[in-house]
């Protein structure tokens, strides 16, 4: 087995049991009593309605999850599609939603626990809350320590639960009485399938809003998508399958429960245990067995709520990780514990939230349920919008194995239903969720905006198509766009050895100062191929002293310029490809590097090089250093796109380093005058009117350049054709100017077009 197969060991059955295990804990064991108070017997329809809404969202999650099987689930998709402001809402919403849901599961756990062990009220806490707090602390501790849990356990628990529920269903079906379900014996207003006392059929949707919390498990499958075997196939089956299965289980078992115990009498805390006891007494098994079955249900409920809470805590650590990686929250939150190898900080913080929610809101299970549901519904609505954005923006990297049927109807319905269900919540819950959204946006503007650099597909589209869009829309997109690392143009200089360091940094410094930008000096350390995938080492001091010395020298050299400098050591065995990657990751606008380094690194990846350099992430300046001296610059030009860049560099050298610039144009035989006119215009256009203008006649461009270069110190060539850099670096183009001149040569190439999604997806 390859390493990757070993790393991705979550199979279909395991994934499905994560979904089912998380969901049935809440829906069957905790909610039926409270939900029945809301709607009477038609609460069964509420469960089905919740299941349908969950199923529509499950289809969307499946598509997004197969397109991007990444840790973080909903947050990840929303952040990529809609940008970090909505990403903040989705990520914090998902996280808080999971904390509320865990508090809810813990209260459910406490409710069943007190039937076994009577717990006293403590201060302002009820016995149930005390039990819930114990559970919350226990689950947090288990995940902090990282108890040895193997996949088998989750599967066994879920199979046991299904068995226990099977026993209940059998007894319940035998004791089922339609008259009990329809409430014949009840008084006026309470009888009938849709009793007037709860508001008739009108109560179906408000109750659906309440029971939606029992469907929150399926999205957790998506948050661990990166651990799954064959996610393209297994993820949709697990997500859609688990929603389908639990919807059927809910519909059947809640019907059975209400046919055994009349809805107004159904226990609020322990409905399953109560219904089981009544059912088994009724079918004449005797009291001992009935009580035994009730205890079995209690054990099942404890297992179910515990596994729900556990999965939620693990899932929230994924969301934190994904947010930390995008710097929406502090990356330090995801630090791994040195002994237990767990994301202990994230787990402690989530655990603390759970404890606070239990203590402050735990008296009313419905409030916790509503809070969890409403936050998840907000996330689901955003996720559906994200799906539409991905499809509409025609992102080439977006290639899901599973596609939602009936696009765009499905995601539109998903959005409308998710938001619609929120409308059925109590006004105070809607208000709180609105406050939460405001809070997340405030968090984004106060903290995350300056940190994160990920821009969403949507705002990229709007900002790139600025002219076609209404000003207000562009203005809004600008206003919320991330500012982290984007305030100044970034000139990245890739240093490979001390010999060329000074020249490259001087060049980078001059350009950065001219543009009002900053310099990012990187030292790319080639490490042996066996070393695992290269990783940017954030702490310079972790790496050898050589790197430190080199980057210190770079700092000193950059000090002569009025620009901020940052340094970074990057470990890699990929050479040039790493330069491209680093340019993308750091959102560089210009890369300065040495010709030798490029050529050496390039030689190792011959095949891929072409592909790479045809797809430049930003402007590239490659210096062939033969004693760097920028005092007399020769700038041969034929006009055109790439020469804009070389002209810009010449202007920067002139303004910052007092270079004298000579522009050389090689005209066809007998076209000297036209050439002179052209070059004068060109120079004026490029702010080079003060430059010396040289025009040569003839066909021998290289000879002309060579002759002119003789008394100059630096030749600056704008790569005119796409891929010139590739051919030069790869050695396939015998560009004798580069090889034969005694002066230094600076090759400038500008990408034909910087594609919208490169910057987005280039991070991976």
């Amino acid at each position, binding site marked *: 087995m390859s*390493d990757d197969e*070993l*790393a*991705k*060991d*979550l*199979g279909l*059955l*395991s994934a499905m049991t*994560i979904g089912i295990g998380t969901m049935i804990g809440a829906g069957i064991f905790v909610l039926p009593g409270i939900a029945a108070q809301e709607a009477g017997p038609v609460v069964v329809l509420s469960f089905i309605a919740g299941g349908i809404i969950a199923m529509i969202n499950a289809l969307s999650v499946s598509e997004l999850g197969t397109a991007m099987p*990444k*840790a973080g689930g909903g947050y990840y998709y929303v952040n990529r599609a809609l940008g970090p402001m909505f990403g903040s809402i989705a990520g914090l919403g998902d996280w808080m939603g999971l904390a509320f849901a865990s508090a809810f599961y813990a209260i459910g756990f406490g409710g069943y626990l007190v039937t076994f062990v009577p717990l006293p009220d403590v201060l302002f806490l009820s016995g149930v809350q005390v039990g819930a707090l114990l559970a919350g602390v226990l689950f947090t501790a288990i*995940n902090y*320590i*990282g108890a*040895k*849990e*193997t*996949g*088998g*356990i*989750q*599967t066994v628990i879920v199979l046991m639960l299904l068995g226990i529920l099977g026993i209940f269903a059998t007894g319940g079906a035998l004791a089922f009485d339609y008259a009990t379900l329809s409430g014949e014996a009840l008084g006026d207003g309470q009888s009938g399938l849709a009793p007037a006392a709860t508001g008739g059929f009108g109560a179906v949707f408000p109750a659906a809003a309440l029971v939606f919390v029992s469907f929150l498990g399926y999205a957790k499958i998506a948050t*661990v998508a*990166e*651990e799954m075997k064959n996610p393209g196939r297994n993820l949709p089956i697990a997500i859609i399958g688990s929603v389908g299965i639990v919807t059927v289980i809910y519909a059947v078992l809640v019907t059975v429960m209400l046919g055994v115990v009349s809805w107004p009498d159904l226990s609020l805390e322990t409905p399953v245990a109560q219904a089981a006891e009544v059912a088994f007494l009724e079918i004449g098994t005797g009291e001992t067995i009935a009580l035994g079955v009730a205890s079995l249900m209690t054990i099942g409920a404890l297992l179910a709520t515990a596994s729900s809470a556990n*999965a939620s805590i*693990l*899932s929230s*650590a*994924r969301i934190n*990780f*994904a947010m930390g*990686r995008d710097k929406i929250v502090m990356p330090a939150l*995801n630090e*791994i514990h*040195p*002994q*237990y*190898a*767990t*994301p202990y900080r994230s787990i402690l913080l989530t655990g603390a939230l759970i404890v606070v929610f239990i203590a402050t809101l735990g008296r009313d299970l419905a409030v916790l349920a509503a809070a969890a549901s409403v936050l998840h519904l907000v996330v689901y609505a955003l996720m559906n919008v994200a799906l539409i954005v991905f499809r509409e923006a025609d992102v080439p990297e977006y290639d899901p194995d599973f596609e939602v049927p009936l696009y765009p109807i499905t995601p539109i319905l998903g959005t409308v239903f998710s938001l619609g269900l929120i409308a059925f919540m109590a006004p105070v819950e809607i208000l709180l969720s609105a406050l939460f959204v405001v809070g997340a946006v405030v968090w984004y503007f106060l903290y995350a905006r300056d940190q994160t650099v990920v821009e969403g597909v949507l705002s990229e589209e709007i900002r790139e198509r600025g002219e076609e869009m209404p000003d207000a829309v562009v203005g809004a997109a600008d206003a919320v766009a991330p500012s982290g690392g984007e305030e100044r143009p970034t000139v990245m200089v890739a240093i490979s050895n001390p010999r060329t360091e000074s020249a490259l940094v001087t060049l980078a410094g001059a350009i950065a100062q001219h543009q009002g930008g900053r310099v990012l000096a990187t030292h790319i*350390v080639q*490490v*042996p191929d*066996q*070393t*695992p*995938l*290269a*990783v940017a*080492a954030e702490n310079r001091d*972790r*790496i*050898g002293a050589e790197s430190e010395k080199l980057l210190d020298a770079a700092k000193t050299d950059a000090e002569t310029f009025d620009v901020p400098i940052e340094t970074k050591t990057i*470990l890699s065995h990929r050479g040039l490809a790493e330069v491209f990657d680093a340019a993308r990751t750091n959102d560089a606008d210009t890369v300065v590097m040495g010709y030798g380094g490029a050529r050496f690194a390039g030689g190792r990846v011959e095949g891929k090089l072409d592909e790479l350099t045809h797809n430049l992430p930003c402007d590239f300046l490659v210096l062939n250093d033969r004693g760097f001296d920028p005092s007399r610059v020769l700038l041969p030009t034929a006009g055109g796109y790439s020469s804009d860049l070389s002209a810009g560099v010449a202007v920067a050298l002139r303004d910052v380093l007092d270079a004298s610039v000579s522009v050389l144009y090689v005209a066809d035989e007998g076209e000297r005058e036209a050439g002179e006119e052209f070059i004068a215009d060109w120079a004026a256009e490029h702010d080079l009117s003060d430059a010396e203008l040289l025009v040569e006649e003839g066909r021998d461009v290289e000879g002309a350049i060579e002759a002119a270069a003789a008394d100059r110190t630096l030749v600056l060539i704008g790569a005119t054709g796409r891929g010139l850099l590739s051919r030069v670096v790869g050695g396939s183009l015998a560009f004798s100017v580069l090889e034969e001149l005694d002066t230094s040569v600076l090759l400038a190439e500008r990408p034909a077009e910087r594609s919208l999604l490169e910057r987005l997806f280039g991070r991976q």
Partner: protein
Amino acid sequence: MTLLSRVVVPVATEDDARSTCAALEPHLDEIEQVIAVHVIEKAGGGIDKAPLEKRREDAAEMLATVDSLLGGRVSVDTRVAFGTDVVSTLFEEAGDANATAVAFAPRSGGRLVRFLSGDTATRIVTEAELPVVALPRVEET
């Protein structure tokens, strides 16, 4: 061929990587190749205790540290291994690499922490499939 010719070195954290390298320092002339291994514990079908991607990133960093600290002196090979059991995965990896020994610098930690984290150090010794060398820790300067 000496005992430490091809030595497998388990690395658990960034700090462990540094102190292990420091502990290996006095023995480098006996070593031909250091094979640094970081084992990521898998749940074998359950949800892992930590996000996989985070563990991989950390693994790459700590192994790169070993490489940068020792790479100039001896040949260094680095590997990330996955398994439900850290110790047996480590020995499997050592077997694959034809290692002559496993050398490690036991990390400190109270009894409770050791108990809760599975006491890997003791298990490496008691379940050894290869000669195991416990390196004395060197105070870092």
